[in-house]
């Protein structure tokens, strides 16, 4: 094999791409069954991706909670939890995956407790009628995983980006990665690969995530021929800090909305009106994320937004010593749980202090991707040897995530780790297809070799501008059409011409990394705009002003994206149903939300 196509070669049974909430359990369970596992992480374990930043809440039905000694509610049951998830997801979920989620929610809670993750509280989260949420900290969660990974001595390549998968005879046989610290290309031969790469939030100008979430898993799976599902579903977090810049992208205002007594925060428009009165007078700022996001955006569109394009987040009504009192209560809670996360210890008091005299700004940020690589309940994709777990996968949530993502990634990670070893016993290692390897090598090295082309920072700005102009919460046909055409053109014509414009040094060359990431983000955004344009209705997180009804007669179906000569082709398929039949008929968006969330604890109504 020509050595110039790679610098190093590694062989393992199972390659796990990602080291956090999903990748950790995958690797841990596979390693426990004796598999030779390798983890590759684009960052460092417990310091990258979305898991570290989680609040964090985990879900567990009341019946199973009681079994492990948590204060669960005996009115609750796995069946009830299942039905809530399907209904609140507007019936697009793969119900077999939801069943597994509920089953493994119980198992993985026990895992995490065994691994030493502390529990702060067991309470209502996601507005459930009864306590189903275990509250901890994302940082403590990922550190508990890290301890297990180290204890099992699982080999890891950190600061290393997996760029593409290798396939042969229709199955995945390995991958090619770039060591970001040295610029070396690594050939990894594996019997199976599990993608645990998270979302693609960085494709959006305004997002809540770390900058490493660039759709690498979704894009490499697509390039390898796997199908993707529900890519038009992107969940926005309203109440994300927009201003001042030092607080930008933080979702810490949420904790001020989650109180039993009602929201502490008031969301105001530029005229000082508490505008949620118009959109959901019963629950106000505690309405669903989707309704708050739409309300905020309607105010901005009507010219009543804040200076930086959002809404004002006001605490002045509490009075200065009232604000101090609330901070003292949070501080007690943090002290009690020995929680030293800087977002809580430094940023939160800073925001409290300023809120005494000013109204700061919040807006809608891209937060979570309910869609992704199409998998079944065993995390298997449409390609043998390729698995996907966690946020990069699609099928669990339908059209909106209504429960814990931490539980999703833990559950699916464990399932992948349990399922892969069986497959790996059946297959042998295979050598790479040389022409495929050459093609990937060329794609990686071209930006570095090229003396001219498209600047990645320039393309990033133009891509982000499209998300600000056309791909916000409220979308319409003409805007989507424009976005889709432009993103598709950028992916096909500009992405192959991306080049490293400044330093050609291979070590820690972020411009080089960004060239590769942009190809992935553009592909995800293209599918997103294509899906939004095709789905002529509104459902869950998907809202179109020109089709504001939820259309169960025509659109209670999932979008599926398949690779035809490199381009995404869209088709639709019915959701997998086991117990809950989707309804018929058309409803206004508000009616649909009311009906899907009817059982939720609507705090404002009480």
């Amino acid at each position, binding site marked *: 094999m020509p050595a110039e196509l790679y610098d190093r070669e590694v062989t393992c049974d199972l390659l796990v791409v990602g080291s956090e909430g999903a990748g950790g359990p995958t690797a841990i369970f596979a390693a426990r069954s004796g598999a030779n596992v390798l983890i590759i992480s684009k960052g460092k374990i417990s310091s990258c991706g979305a898991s570290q930043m989680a609040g964090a809440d985990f879900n567990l039905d009341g019946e199973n909670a009681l079994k492990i000694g948590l204060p669960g509610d005996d009115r609750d049951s796995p069946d009830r939890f299942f039905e809530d998830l399907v209904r609140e997801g507007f019936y697009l979920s793969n119900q077999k995956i939801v069943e597994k989620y509920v089953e493994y929610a119980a198992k993985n809670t026990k895992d995490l407790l065994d691994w030493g993750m502390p529990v702060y509280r067991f309470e209502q989260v996601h507005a459930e009628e009864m306590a189903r949420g275990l509250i901890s900290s994302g940082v403590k969660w990922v550190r508990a995983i890290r301890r297990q990974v180290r204890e099992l001595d699982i080999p890891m390549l950190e600061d290393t980006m997996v760029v593409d998968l290798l396939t042969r005879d229709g199955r995945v046989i390995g991958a090619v990665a770039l060591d970001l610290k040295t610029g070396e290309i690594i050939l990894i031969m594996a019997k199976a690969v599990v993608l645990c790469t998270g979302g693609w939030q960085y494709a959006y100008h305004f997002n809540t995530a*770390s*900058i490493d979430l660039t759709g690498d898993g979704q894009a490499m799976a697509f390039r390898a021929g796997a199908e993707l599902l529900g890519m038009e579903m992107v969940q926005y977090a309203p109440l994300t800090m927009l201003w*001042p810049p030092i607080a930008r*992208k*933080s979702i810490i205002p949420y904790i001020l909305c989650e109180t039993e007594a009602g929201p502490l925060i008031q969301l105001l428009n530029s005229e000082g009106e508490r505008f949620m009165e118009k959109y959901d007078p019963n629950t106000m700022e505690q309405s669903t994320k989707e309704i708050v996001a739409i309300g905020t955006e309607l105010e901005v569109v009507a010219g009543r937004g804040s200076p930086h394009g959002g809404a004002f987040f006001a605490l002045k009504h509490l009075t200065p010593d009232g604000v101090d009192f609330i901070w003292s209560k949070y501080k007690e809670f943090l002290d009690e749980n020995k929680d030293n996360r800087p977002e809580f210890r430094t940023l939160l008091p800073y925001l409290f202090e300023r809120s005494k005299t000013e109204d700061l700004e919040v807006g809608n940020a891209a937060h979570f991707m309910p869609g992704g690589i199409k998998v079944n309940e065993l995390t298997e994709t449409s390609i043998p040897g390729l698995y996907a777990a966690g946020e990069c996968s699609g099928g669990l949530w339908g059209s909106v995530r209504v429960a814990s993502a931490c539980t999703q990634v833990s559950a699916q990670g464990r399932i992948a780790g349990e399922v892969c070893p069986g497959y790996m016993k059946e297959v042998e290692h295979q050598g790479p297809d040389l022409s495929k390897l050459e093609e990937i090598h060329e794609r990686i090295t071209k930006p570095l070799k090229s003396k001219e082309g498209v600047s990645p920072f320039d393309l*990033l700005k133009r891509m982000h501008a499209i998300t600000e102009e056309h791909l916000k919460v409220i979308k319409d046909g003409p805007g989507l059409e424009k976005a889709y055409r432009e993103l598709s053109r950028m992916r096909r014509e500009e992405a192959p011409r991306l080049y490293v414009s400044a330093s050609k040094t291979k070590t820690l060359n972020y411009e080089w990394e960004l060239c590769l990431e942009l190809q992935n983000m553009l592909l995800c955004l293209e599918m997103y705009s294509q899906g939004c344009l095709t789905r002529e209705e509104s459902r869950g997180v998907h809202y179109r002003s020109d089709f504001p009804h939820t259309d169960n007669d025509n659109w209670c179906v999932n979008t599926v994206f398949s690779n035809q000569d490199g381009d995404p082709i869209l088709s639709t398929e019915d959701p997998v149903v086991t117990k809950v039949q989707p309804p018929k008929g058309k409803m206004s968006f508000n009616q649909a939300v009311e009906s899907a969330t009817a059982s939720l604890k609507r705090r404002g109504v009480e």
Partner: protein
Amino acid sequence: MGENTIKVKCLRYDPAVDKKPHYKKYKVPMQEDDMSVHDCLEYIRSNLDPSLAYFINCRHGFCLRCSLRVNGKVVLACETKVEDDMTLEPVNMDTIIRDLWCEST
């Protein structure tokens, strides 16, 4: 300096091409409210000098990898406010991999 820009002096060192570390100066527009050292580095890399190597990830103190020295003091870039005439250096000058990245990053 204009009212709305700040002066930033940043240590640069690429062992592949430089004999020794040196400093490079940048003028960065100041936002009209508190911005972080991290925002400032992001501005430099996106707009002035794509070759600058530093670490950013989560922006809000979870990953703890963006530590560097501002005017000699070790801080997290994401939670530290910018100031005029600031000097940015890696935490450990003896283990620089490139620019503001050192072995401990």
